């Protein structure tokens, strides 16, 4: 039985009660599922014609549907990958600028970050896609999507990286400076590698966000997964089935990424413990000073 602090280890009476509620909850879930099933069945949602284009390889539409879906998934991944890489670069630059900025222009950086953070990402994408062409910048929808996502996510990543830098013990910076490293070297060789290491779980979680947000490409006609699913639905008339497939794909990929983030977090915190000496003082891993701190994990 669970070792939660919220309730005692169940005795015979509590066990009976838990069993009773388990059965009750089970019956409740089954009842809801049955009602959903009956209603969908009544609406002929389980007709073969609605499912076989997606699941039956002998169906005449099967190959085309999955070819389109494959292209669309690739388009989603390409947009997400580009957005993540650009956001990471720009976000790091922004974070470093914010941390090292002289007071007289720090407010400008902070203002920019707060401004971009307050705008919905869908408005950002729409803004880019509508405004840039008016000024003669005519790009593929992919690039509008990537620019919109980058504008939004780079400030989020900037905040993540800044939090990472601030979470480091002050001694790290002081030690680097006392070794005679310049400010740039301190950041590049000592602070950033450790910040990235500490922030890796948050960065992976942000990847999930970006992946989900690429689905907003549908408003600017970028042929990513959700838009192509819409086109398939228009031809085959099976929205529930098609979106079910899309949802399952997204959930599996993002769930795996989420588990990866948890795993990395556990690994990192385990690593930290082993770095302590017997008297509890933290010892710097040798590779941090050579700038390879983040290399092993990323």
């Amino acid at each position: 039985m669970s070792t939660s602090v919220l309730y005692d280890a169940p005795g015979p009476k509590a066990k009976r009660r838990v069993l009773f509620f388990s059965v009750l909850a089970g019956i409740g879930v089954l009842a809801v599922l049955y009602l959903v099933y009956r209603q969908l069945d009544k609406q002929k949602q389980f007709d073969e014609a609605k499912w076989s284009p997606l699941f039956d390889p002998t169906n005449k539409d099967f190959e085309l549907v999955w070819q389109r879906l494959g292209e669309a998934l690739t388009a989603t991944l390409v947009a997400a990958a580009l957005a993540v890489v650009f956001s990471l670069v720009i976000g790091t630059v922004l974070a470093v600028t914010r941390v090292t900025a002289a007071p007289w222009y720090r407010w400008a950086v902070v203002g920019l970050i707060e401004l971009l953070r307050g705008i919905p990402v869908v408005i950002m994408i729409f803004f880019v896609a509508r405004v840039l062409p008016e000024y003669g910048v005519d790009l593929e929808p992919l690039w509008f999507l990537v620019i919109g996502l980058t504008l939004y996510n780079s400030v989020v990543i900037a905040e993540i990286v800044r939090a990472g830098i601030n979470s480091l013990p002050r001694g790290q910076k002081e030690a680097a400076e006392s070794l005679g490293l310049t400010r740039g070297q301190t950041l590049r060789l000592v602070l950033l590698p450790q910040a990235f290491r500490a922030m890796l779980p948050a960065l992976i979680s942000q990847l999930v966000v970006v992946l989900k947000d690429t689905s907003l490409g549908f408003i600017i006609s970028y042929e990513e997964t959700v838009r192509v699913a819409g086109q398939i639905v228009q031809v085959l008339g099976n929205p529930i089935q098609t979106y079910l497939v899309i949802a399952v794909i997204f959930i599996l990929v993002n769930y795996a990424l989420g588990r990866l983030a948890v795993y990395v977090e556990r690994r990192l915190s385990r690593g930290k413990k082993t770095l302590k000496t017997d008297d509890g003082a933290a010892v710097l891993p040798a590779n941090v000073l050579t700038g390879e701190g983040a290399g092993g994990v990323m």
Partner: protein
Amino acid sequence: MNVILDNFDLYRDGFLKTLLICAYAIVGSLVLGTVMAAFRVSPVPPLRWIGTSWVNVFRNCPLTVVLFFCAFGLPELGINGAYFWFGVAGLVLYTSAFVCEAVRSGINSVPAGQAEAARAVGLTFSQSLSSVILPQALRTVVPPLGSVIIAMIKNSAIVGAFGVGGELFAVSDTLTSARGEAALPVLTGVVIAYLLITIPGGLFLGWLERKVAIAR
């Protein structure tokens, strides 16, 4: 900037509609999310499974897909209503998963001694949860819950892009696509309108955070 002043009533209505969507969605997702969080820590295994699957499904699925499911799926289940309510329902379902995780992290942050003391004086699971754990958890949970709600306000624009008419995103779409106005001033107006919600919202949450903070 004339286009904003000329269409001020359109902007005002859009602003209010966005606020209305957000208000419904905040209430709905807070209630649903807290219930799911209680499920996730409950002693009854099937309830825990429901809570866990709920979070994993809605947190990992793009909001657009959730919205499409609401729009196409709910009518098939015999639930009919205005498009507006499908939009709100989608936003509530999606946000509740994040609320659930925030509340659960709050429950985990309450010191074990509190729960042990509650058990020691003989409170049942639901008593100790509702009168000892949750009141303390909800306080520590204000900052993460606040960011969830700010994110939800921004996500309400997706509900608009998805076809719930009249709110801020729809206003920008109407003005630029249907009336052919220049995009820069129109969208600047929309951006300002959103910032009018999100920035004061953030400041309010910061204030609330300081007000309810527990000195430990």
